[in-house]
Every structure is written in structure tokens, then in C-alpha cells.
């Protein structure tokens, strides 16, 4: 390598080293096997869309959704929110835990491994058959987190309407406006347990080890 090459290399390395690298997401920095995160990527967008649809359907309204969008800061992937969904809110059905566990579309995994003081706020069901979605909403120390369950082998996304939010993002959030809609960043921990696909939306309500504890408690082969 001659002086010219060395100069190019030094300049490029300097530019690469100059980036301040953000900390990796929790799922990378904790002990993990290569198999456990399979099938995660696209599920995250689906689960996030389902949660938004649910928030819209239980008439929490724009304000609450805006707060939710603001609260969920760590991001896995973008997904699009369609403004037209506002016109068609999705109906939902409130359930007891016993009723939820009897859902026939898949073998529901009862929420487990929760922090001792977490309380159930609501259990909702969206859709039927392979599009059935159960949403367990919890309150923990004044903050909310949700567990969303869908059939693991479902190839179709439940028919969920989306709600346009007007969040006030934190500086680190990525909220992009375009002619095609609004993009948000959401983070979910998603895993497969038996015949259920489970997504945990914790935002900053739970510590990473609490999320990990729930995931372990609700995982079965």
C-alpha cells in the first residue's frame, strides 16, 4: 500500500471511527441463541399495527394514542400508519381471562412472569379464526404495557384499522411524514410459544430483565 492508499485508508477509517455508535438493542446485548429470534422481523410490524388498532378501537382516542406513540421510544422497525383507517375503527370485545384462555384459534398462553405489582387493565379480542388477536393490557407503577397474542401459524394480518397520531416525538425518535403516511418507531419483543405468537410492548414500563422474565415464563415448546 503506497502513501496515496494509506491516506485514503486513514481518512476513511477516521470517518468511520468518528461516528458515535448508539448502544445496541437489548436483545443483542443479553445472552441469546441464534435460533430464538427467528421470524421476528416482520412480526414486529404486525404486532405494532395490531396494538395501534386496538388503541383506536377502544376509543382511547387520538390523545391517548399520541401519548402512546410518544412513550414508545426504542425502535425496531418502521411501519406505515394509514390515515384512512381513522374512518373504520375496529370493533373489539372485552373478555375475562377464563374466556380469553378458551380462544379456539390457537392455544392461548396465560400471561406469566409479570412483576408482582402489575395489574390487568383489560383483555380484548379482535377478529375471529386465524385472525384472532388477544390483547392483554397491564398497568405497572402507573405505566402501561401490553401482551398481544396471535396464532403462530397465521399467514394473514388481522383486519386492523390504524389511527393517525400526532405525537410529539423525543429527539431520538424517528417520526417521518411523507405523502404516503406517517411512520413511527416502535419496539416489541416478539417470540413464538406453542401455537401462539406473542408480542410484548413494554416501552419504558418494564426493565429489560423484567421483559426477559416474562418472555421466559411465557415460552413453551
Amino acid at each position, binding site marked *: 500500500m503506497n502513501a496515496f492508499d494509506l491516506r485514503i485508508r486513514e481518512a476513511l477509517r*477516521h470517518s468511520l471511527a468518528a*461516528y458515535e455508535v448508539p448502544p445496541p438493542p437489548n436483545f*443483542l446485548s443479553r445472552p441469546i441463541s441464534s435460533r430464538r429470534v427467528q421470524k421476528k422481523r416482520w412480526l414486529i410490524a404486525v404486532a405494532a399495527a395490531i396494538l395501534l388498532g386496538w388503541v383506536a378501537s377502544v376509543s382511547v382516542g387520538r390523545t391517548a394514542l399520541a401519548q402512546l406513540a410518544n412513550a414508545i421510544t426504542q425502535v425496531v422497525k418502521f411501519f406505515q400508519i394509514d390515515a384512512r383507517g381513522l374512518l373504520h375503527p375496529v370493533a373489539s370485545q372485552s373478555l375475562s381471562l377464563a374466556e380469553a384462555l378458551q380462544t379456539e384459534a390457537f392455544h392461548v398462553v396465560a400471561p406469566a412472569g409479570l412483576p408482582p405489582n402489575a395489574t390487568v387493565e383489560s383483555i380484548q379480542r379482535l377478529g375471529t379464526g386465524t385472525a384472532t388477536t388477544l390483547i392483554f393490557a397491564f398497568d405497572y407503577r402507573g405505566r402501561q404495557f401490553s401482551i398481544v397474542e396471535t396464532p403462530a401459524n397465521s399467514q394473514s394480518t388481522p383486519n386492523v384499522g390504524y389511527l393517525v397520531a400526532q405525537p410529539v416525538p423525543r429527539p431520538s425518535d424517528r417520526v417521518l411524514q411523507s405523502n404516503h403516511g406517517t411512520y413511527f418507531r416502535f419496539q416489541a419483543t416478539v417470540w413464538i410459544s406453542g401455537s401462539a405468537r406473542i408480542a410484548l410492548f413494554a416501552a419504558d414500563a418494564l426493565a429489560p430483565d423484567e421483559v426477559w422474565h416474562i418472555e421466559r415464563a411465557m415460552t413453551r415448546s
Partner: protein
Amino acid sequence: MRGEAPAISKLMVRSWDMAFRLGARVLGDRSAAQDVAQAACERALRSLKLLRSAKAYDAWFYAIVLRIALRERAALARHAALEVRERPVFVDPTDSIVVNEAIDRLQPELKYVVILFYGCDLRTSDIARCLNLPHGTVRYRLHEARKLLREMLESTVGKESIGA
């Protein structure tokens, strides 16, 4: 590469660093680079068992990062409302700025070869695998890139300071 979970986790943390830096250099956007790093690490985790040699990991992983970064770049460019910044967001000493600006003026197919060769320390054969190109094509592009860089830098700062 099918070692214990902590070893994989350690590897992923290192990979995150590699992916973010390359993603940021290609896209010039921290937020987009974070997405690229996330997607690349997930992809690498899923496909890790397919990797036969640990020595090939860096080239293999950079290939994943670059593919995702280029797709992300194309997706961003499709949204007219989004501004795709051509310049990376870093602050360099004077000479480094000049050189990096010259690199950014290269055509993308030349630029990525230069970044992978000089910035990521990959061999031309690895870059060929990375970009799914014949080895000869990579060497030609590198040669062309060098020539263009030399011309650009000569016109910018004068022949004396270019080097041998």
C-alpha cells in the same frame, strides 16, 4: 459459530458497531444507520448457522449490512418528503474531510468498493463475494476509483500533497 449464547451475544454487540459505522457511512444518517444495524444483526443471527468459517464472518456480515443499507437508501429515496443526505454526518480534520468528500463524489458502485476496501479492510475477493461481482470487476472498480480519487484530490489540493 454455533457457540454458547454469551459468545453469540458478544459477537452481535461487535457486529452492531460494525454495522452502524458502515451504515452511517453509506447512508449519512444516524437514524437510518441504526435501522440498518438492527436489521443486519437480526439477519446475521438468523443465518449464523449457515456460516462455515468464522474467518469469513466479517466479509459475510459486511455483505449483509451493505445489502440492507442500499435497500434502505433506495426506500428512503422513494419518499419524496424525505431528504437523503449525501454527506455523512461526521467531523474530520481537514485532510480527512477533503478525502471523504472526494470519495462521496464517486459513483456509488465505485464508492462502496472503496469504503469496503479501505474502511472495512476487506480483500478484493471478499468484496467480490460481498457485492456478488466477479473478482476482476471489483479490482477494475478499485483501480478506477483510485484513479478518479487521485484526479479529484490533485485538482483540489495540488499534486504535491497527493502522495506517491
